C-alpha cells in the first residue's frame, strides 16, 4: 500500500518534471530557419545533380573527353551522351581516311561530347559517375533549391548549363 502510494507520488512528481522541461524549452530560442527569409548557411558537401567542369583556359569547353565511363557505370542509366571529334579547320577531309593514316601526322583531335544530358528523375546521387571520371570533368552542383512542375524540367542539358555558367561568369 505504502509502496503504491510512494510510486504514485513519485510518478506525479515525474509529470511535473516533464512539464518543467517543456516550459524551459518554451522559453528557449527557436532552432528552425524561416525558410524563404532565411536559408541554411552551411551547404558545404551538398551533392546536387552533376554538372560539367569547364576547362581552366576555356570556360565554354568542358574537360570531358567523352570516354563514357560515367554512362557505363551509372546504375540507373540516367546519363546520355553523344561524342564526336571536333571539326578542326583542315580536319573534315582527313577525318575520312583518319583510320588508315596513323595519328602521328598531327596531334589527334580529342573527342568531346556534343550532347550531355542528365535525366535527374532517375538519378540516385550515388556519385559513381563523378568518381569514375578520369579527367575530373564532373562535379556536384550546389543547386539546393531545385523545384519544377514537370518531369521534363529535370532533364538537364549539361552542355547548355555549362555555357550559361560561363556566360554569367563573363558578365
Amino acid at each position, binding site marked *: 500500500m505504502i509502496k503504491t502510494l510512494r510510486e504514485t507520488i513519485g510518478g506525479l512528481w515525474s*509529470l511535473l518534471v*516533464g*512539464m518543467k522541461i*517543456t516550459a524551459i*524549452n518554451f522559453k528557449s*530560442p*527557436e*532552432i528552425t530557419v*524561416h525558410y524563404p527569409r532565411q536559408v541554411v548557411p552551411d551547404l558545404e558537401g551538398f551533392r546536387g545533380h552533376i554538372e560539367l567542369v569547364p576547362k581552366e583556359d576555356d570556360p565554354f569547353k568542358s574537360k570531358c573527353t567523352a570516354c563514357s565511363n560515367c554512362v557505363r557505370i551509372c546504375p540507373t542509366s540516367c546519363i546520355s551522351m553523344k561524342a564526336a571529334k571536333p571539326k578542326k579547320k583542315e580536319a573534315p577531309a582527313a577525318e575520312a581516311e583518319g583510320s588508315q593514316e596513323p595519328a602521328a601526322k598531327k596531334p589527334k583531335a580529342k573527342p568531346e561530347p556534343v550532347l550531355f544530358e542528365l535525366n535527374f528523375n532517375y538519378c540516385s546521387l550515388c556519385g559513381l559517375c563523378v568518381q569514375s571520371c578520369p579527367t575530373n570533368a564532373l562535379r556536384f552542383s550546389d543547386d539546393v533549391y531545385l523545384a519544377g512542375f514537370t518531369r521534363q524540367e529535370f532533364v538537364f542539358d549539361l552542355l547548355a548549363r555549362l555555357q550559361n555558367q560561363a556566360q554569367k561568369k563573363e558578365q
Partner: protein
Amino acid sequence: MIEAIEAIPAQFIVIFVGFLAILAFVGLNAVLLVYLERKIAGFIHRRPGPYEVGPHGILQPIADGLKLVGKQIFTPTGADSYLFWLAPMISIAPALVCFIAIPFGPHLQIINTNVGLILILAFTGINVLALCIAGWTSQNKYSLLGAARDISQSVAYEIPLLITVLSVVFMTGTFNLFDIAAGQGAWPWQWYIVYQPLAFVLFFICVLAETNRAPFDLPEAESELTAGFHTEYSGMGFAMFFLAEYAYMVVASCIVAILFLGGFQGPIAPGVWWFLAKVYIVLLVMIWIRWTFPRVRFDQLLNICWKWLIPLAVLNLLITLAVIAL
C-alpha cells in the same frame, strides 16, 4: 411594433442577445485557442508555429476555418446520413447552452439561476450522445471503437466530477454559480483552491478526461484509432466537432475558475477581466499538458478513475462534510 417588442419578457430579449454574444464568444475563443494551441506547441518544440498568414500567423485559424467551410461534404456509403450530420450539431448545441449560466463578471450573466451548476453538468453530458451517434453512424470500425471508448470514459469520469463539485457545493450551500463566485474573496488565499486543493486537482483531471484532452484523448487517439469518432467527418462536420471541443474546454475552464479560483473576483481591475484571465490560465495549462505527456491506455484511464479518483473524491467529500458539521 414597439408594443410587440415590449410584450416580450425582458428576460427573453436578454437571452436572445446573450445567445448571439455566446456565439461570437465561442467563435472568437475557438479562433484564439487554435492559434494559441499551435503557437504554444511551436514554442515548446522550439519552432515558430504558424507564421505565414498574417503577422506572426495570426490569421492562420481564419484561413483554416475558411478551408474547412470550403471542403466537400462527404457522407460515407451506407451511413445513416440524418444521424451522421445530426451528431456534430448535437455536439455543439449543448456547449452553447452552458454559457448561459456562467457569470463572466459581477453584472455579466445571462440568467442567474439557482441550478446553474447542475444545468452545466447536465448539458455537458449530452456531448457523449453526440460522439456516440457519430461513431455509430460513420460505418467505420475505428469510429465505433472511438465512440465506445468515449462512452465508458465519460460515464466513468462524470462520477468523480460530480462528487468533487459536491464538496464545493456543500461548502457554499448553493448551486448558483454567481453565489459561489461571489462567496470567494478577491485575493488568492480567499479562493476555494486553498480550502479544497485535493478537490481542485481531482476536478482538473476529470475536466481533462471529460473534454477528451491529452493525455486522456482516447476517443480520438490518433496513433491507435486514426481519428476515432470523427474519422469520417469532413468540412463543416469536422469543424463543428472541433468547435465543440474548444467550447467545452472553455466551459470547463470557466467552471474551474468559478469553483476554485474565485471567478470574477479580483482586486483593482473589473471582474470580467479577472475572469477571462483565470479562464485562460487554466486553458494554457491544459494546452501545456497536452504537449508534454504521452497518452494513457484505455484500461489505465478507467483504473485511474475507479481506483483513485472516486475514492479520493469521496474521501474529500467526507472530510468536507465533517469540517462543515463541526
